[in-house]
């Protein structure tokens, strides 16, 4: 009986032994208008003004060897809907007009990044069409250009060693997917065409944590230009992972850096397990020809089942089809990633190629309301013998056949090797199958765009932005910040603002934490912090410097402005400031109220009095002023008594 490997932690040594190789592809949106038209690079939340319907003309001979015929069939039938916005998408995104010349501002940013990484710019850039048939580009191809190539000296240093750069491309962002079903996919065109750099490293990364560190460093490098988009979705990583005897997997769309090590670890686990499964199948003597078992209609065997799944399917008019899987007993249910079984992999294939809802297999039954008796009936219908398992798929005949076809292909791979796949990153660090890894990209020249020489654009780049490490070092030295706080300012894109407000004679650490932790806590409270403009912070710093605003009041001022209660800190101060006379009268009242304790403790009662006063005036007047005043009044009070 096959047993899944214990999910113990792997050590550094293990990763070296396993021959782990990881490469990153970082996609970063640039802060410029669209790459091939003048439309602004902004994302929309509202409904598009109208929708256009398209199909993609894909020829069989073009599709290549990697995609099964089923894929071709479904692609030709598939309808794509594209949402257009009349005001900020145009004929270019809708593929109703040829592209304009390449956006040279975007190229300048891409070249700046290349130079920062000591990569070698290409003399003359040629825009290519990379065939993409999932509908994410209205053209059916993505426009992309190789801008620079890495060399020995173009690398970054991590705690686990150097990581070299391979290539830097400038390309157009794809359309935003709204909905995807096998027969139809809906996209919005607002995102299509936003300029994007794709920075690819060589597979020098050999440790899961190194992958995260490299991604972090490269992301910071990109942001150091000050010319990339910020915020959710503006940067994403594709991770290529393989181990010796495994196979390269392209894991798409990782947005959270902290997830990277986990994704790599789980992928290593998955490949180790798949290799073990292969060995186990070989030792069982399973052969490819055993996988030719027929697809059988087993609806009758399950007709009186109480299973909700089955009953719902039958009510829809679907049928239940089964296939005997010779010698796979125990394997379909074996865990290959935390919470994912080999059966889950098969289920992914069935969903992608057949558009069915999923599969049921022998290793997980009885379950889902299908009892032992029904399992026995199904096994007998399928002529299962000892050691065999089976797979059930519900649906209409045609999609079910497509689903079983792809399952059969996947089962064949199980006997041979780990298949190369493009996989989608899931939120828990696992991945699911998206499509086979494309063979070499089908690319041909974008004849509508003239090549661009880089020399004139390189001449425009007068100086390179300082590296992130330099910026942070300067902050630490000049403003006496901790390194962590300085990095936070950098990561939150607040360095320039911080430097502007630091001239107002306010402790710099306080200013830095105002920009970081105060904002963060307002964000946690779901205040609309986007209402806070740079001018608000400048004004606050000025008021603090002049002693007209108390530090303690800063969170409340910012909250009030964010909420829209005040448009400026000046007005807030006017409404909330208390006069010295008022302060004196508050102090006097408290001294009288607490006179007994004061007489008892003498000067030691300062802390208590101060606390009481601050309860009343917090945020309305600088604590230092209050403290001086309380001290004096307390002395006067003690002398008088």
């Amino acid at each position, binding site marked *: 009986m096959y047993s899944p490997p214990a999910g113990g932690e792997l050590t550094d040594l293990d990763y070296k032994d396993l021959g782990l190789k990881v490469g990153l592809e970082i996609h970063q949106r640039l802060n410029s208008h669209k790459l091939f038209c003048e439309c602004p690079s902004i994302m929309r939340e509202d409904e598009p003004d109208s929708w256009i319907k398209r199909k993609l003309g894909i020829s069989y001979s073009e599709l290549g060897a990697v995609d099964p015929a089923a894929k071709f069939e479904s692609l030709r039938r598939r309808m794509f809907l594209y949402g257009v916005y009349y005001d900020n998408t145009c004929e270019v995104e809708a593929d109703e007009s040829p592209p304009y010349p390449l956006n040279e501002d975007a190229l300048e940013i891409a070249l700046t990044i290349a130079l920062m990484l000591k990569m070698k710019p290409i003399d*003359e850039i040629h825009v290519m069409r990379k*065939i993409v048939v999932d509908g994410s580009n209205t053209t059916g191809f993505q426009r992309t250009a*190789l801008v620079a190539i890495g060399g020995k000296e173009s690398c970054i240093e991590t705690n686990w060693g150097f990581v070299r750069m391979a290539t830097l491309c400038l390309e157009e962002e794809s359309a935003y997917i709204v909905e995807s079903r096998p027969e139809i996919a809906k996209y919005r065109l607002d995102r299509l065409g936003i300029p994007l750099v794709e920075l690819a490293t060589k597979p020098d990364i050999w440790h899961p944590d190194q992958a995260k560190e490299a991604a972090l460093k490269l992301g910071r490098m990109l942001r150091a230009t000050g010319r990339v988009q910020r915020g959710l979705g503006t940067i994403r990583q594709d991770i290529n992972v393989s181990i010796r005897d495994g196979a390269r997997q392209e894991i798409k769309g990782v947005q959270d850096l902290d997830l990277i090590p986990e994704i790599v670890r789980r992928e290593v686990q998955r490949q180790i397990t798949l290799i073990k499964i292969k060995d186990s199948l070989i030792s069982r003597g399973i052969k490819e020809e055993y996988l030719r078992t027929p697809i059988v209609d087993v609806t009758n065997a399950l007709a009186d089942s109480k299973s909700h799944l089955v009953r719902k399917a039958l009510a829809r008019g679907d049928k239940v089809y089964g296939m005997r899987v010779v010698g796979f007993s125990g394997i379909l249910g074996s865990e290959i990633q935390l919470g994912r079984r080999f059966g889950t992999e098969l289920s992914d294939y069935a969903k992608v190629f057949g558009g069915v809802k999923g599969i049921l297999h022998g290793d997980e039954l009885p379950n889902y309301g299908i009892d032992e008796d029904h399992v026995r009936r199904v096994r007998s219908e399928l002529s299962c013998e000892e050691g065999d398992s089976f797979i059930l798929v519900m649906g209409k005949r045609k999609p079910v056949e497509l689903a079983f076809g792809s399952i059969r292909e996947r089962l064949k791979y199980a006997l041979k090797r780990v298949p190369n796949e493009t996989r989608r990153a899931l939120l828990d660090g696992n991945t699911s199958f998206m499509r086979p890894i494309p063979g070499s990209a089908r690319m041909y020249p974008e004849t509508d765009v003239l090549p661009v020489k880089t020399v004139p654009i390189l001449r425009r780049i007068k100086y390179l932005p300082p590296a992130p490490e330099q910026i942070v070092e300067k902050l630490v030295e000049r403003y006496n910040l901790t390194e962590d706080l300085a990095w936070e300012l950098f990561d939150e894109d607040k360095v320039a603002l911080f430097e502007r407000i630091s001239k107002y004679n306010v402790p710099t650490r306080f200013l830095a934490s105002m920009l970081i932790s105060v904002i963060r806590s307002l964000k946690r409270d779901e205040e609309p912090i986007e209402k806070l403009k740079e001018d608000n912070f400048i004004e606050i710093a000025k008021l603090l410097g002049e002693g007209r605003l108390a530090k303690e009041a800063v969170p409340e001022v910012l909250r009030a402005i964010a909420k829209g209660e005040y448009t400026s800190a000046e007005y807030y101060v006017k409404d909330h400031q208390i006069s010295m006379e008022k302060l004196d009268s508050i102090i006097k009242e408290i001294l009288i109220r607490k006179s007994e304790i004061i007489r008892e403790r003498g000067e030691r009662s300062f802390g208590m009095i101060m606390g009481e006063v601050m309860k009343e005036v917090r945020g309305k007047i600088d604590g230092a002023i209050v403290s001086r005043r309380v001290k004096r009044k307390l002395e006067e009070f003690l002398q008088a008594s």
Partner: protein
Amino acid sequence: MTLHYRGRVGKLLSSLRIGDYDRIRVLKDGRVYEGILIPRPEILDDEHLIIKLDNGYNIGINIEGAKMKLISKANLSRERKIPKLRYRDDLPFVPLIVTGGTITSKVDYSTGAVISHEKPEELLDIVPELANIINTKYVTLFSEFSENLTPNHWKLIAKAVYEQLRKGADGVLIAHGTDTMHYTAAALAFMLHSLDKPVVLVGSQRSIDRPSTDAVLNLIAAARVAAESPIAESVIAMHGSPSDEYAYVIRGVRARKMHTSRRDAFQSINEPPIARVTYDSIRFLTENFRRKREGPSNVELDDRLDPNVALVQIWPGIPNGFLSTLAERFKGLVLAGTGLGHTPRYLIPEVAEIVKSGIPVVITSQCLFGRVNLNVYETGRRLLMAGAISGEDMLPEVALVKLMYVLGHTDNLEEIRKMIKENMTGEVGAHLGLNVFPSCWR
């Protein structure tokens, strides 16, 4: 060995015996680039060479300081799997006359070159649906962008259509560049008499080498019209909207390319399209079309044309003497006048002189939509008195083609006048209902 490089790079490459698509290695600034040498378009400079790297990208390398080495010669003989052509007895025979454009081309991803194909099998590879609509073959006449076509090309096409129909074709498809497709469609309408089968021009605004090509729907729609519709006219079948949903069938003498790049660039002017065709249906929008006749075709060919006709757009400030200069060189003038069909008042004596010298002047409107009316304003009346001929509701381009046709038959001014005003093939006298003027935003 061919080599598409000129000047400095060309000399260098030939001296190294390197040709197009050879695999080469380039050393520059301490880096090595290896890939396939890609032909360089002539409009680019002679200082760079283009190679396609193994990752698929093309890059241009300035040869200053570069060292090149031949790695291996080109290997281009790559057979692609294409489906076999099946003939079905139950389907009509509709040949495809190829005149150019990109519908009969494909891209070779190993080089990026767009190459034209010779066999319909290759077209069926891209549009397999056609095999269920028609039996077809290629009749290749020439391969020209349609901006290069002349009235002589129209004659070649008309003759090919005539021959195919007389040989028993059930209809004809014509693959054509889109720039001047409507001129050709109009010319065929005048030259093919007693037309009794569909003649359908089709093209694409997005070339067929792109997955997003509009050619698939256009071809399916055109084939359906040629195979299944009762229309016996020269028509254009192209997209009806930016979506791949339906195509419009537009009468050749009413069609005009109204947008530089949109899929639905072709619009029917002054009358609704004849039909709306989806992937699997035809819906007629009008009953106003010539009907097909079953059995052998009795189509006649009359390709007498005199190409010496000029089409002039009137503009504010058009100088005196401009039209007279043209009249020395041409045998007929078509004016695209302003508004109802006007020219500046000061040109009228010149028009009178030209007509007097025996050269017909046909007035159309640059408004395109609507009818010329020379009776409303004084300028119009004076133009009529000067002997100008009203082009009625004809498009300027259609009037141009028609005047060529008419001048191919007579130089008698009175006969010319009569023939121009006579409706020969649906080009004159449309019913201007309120449903024939489009605006996208209504």
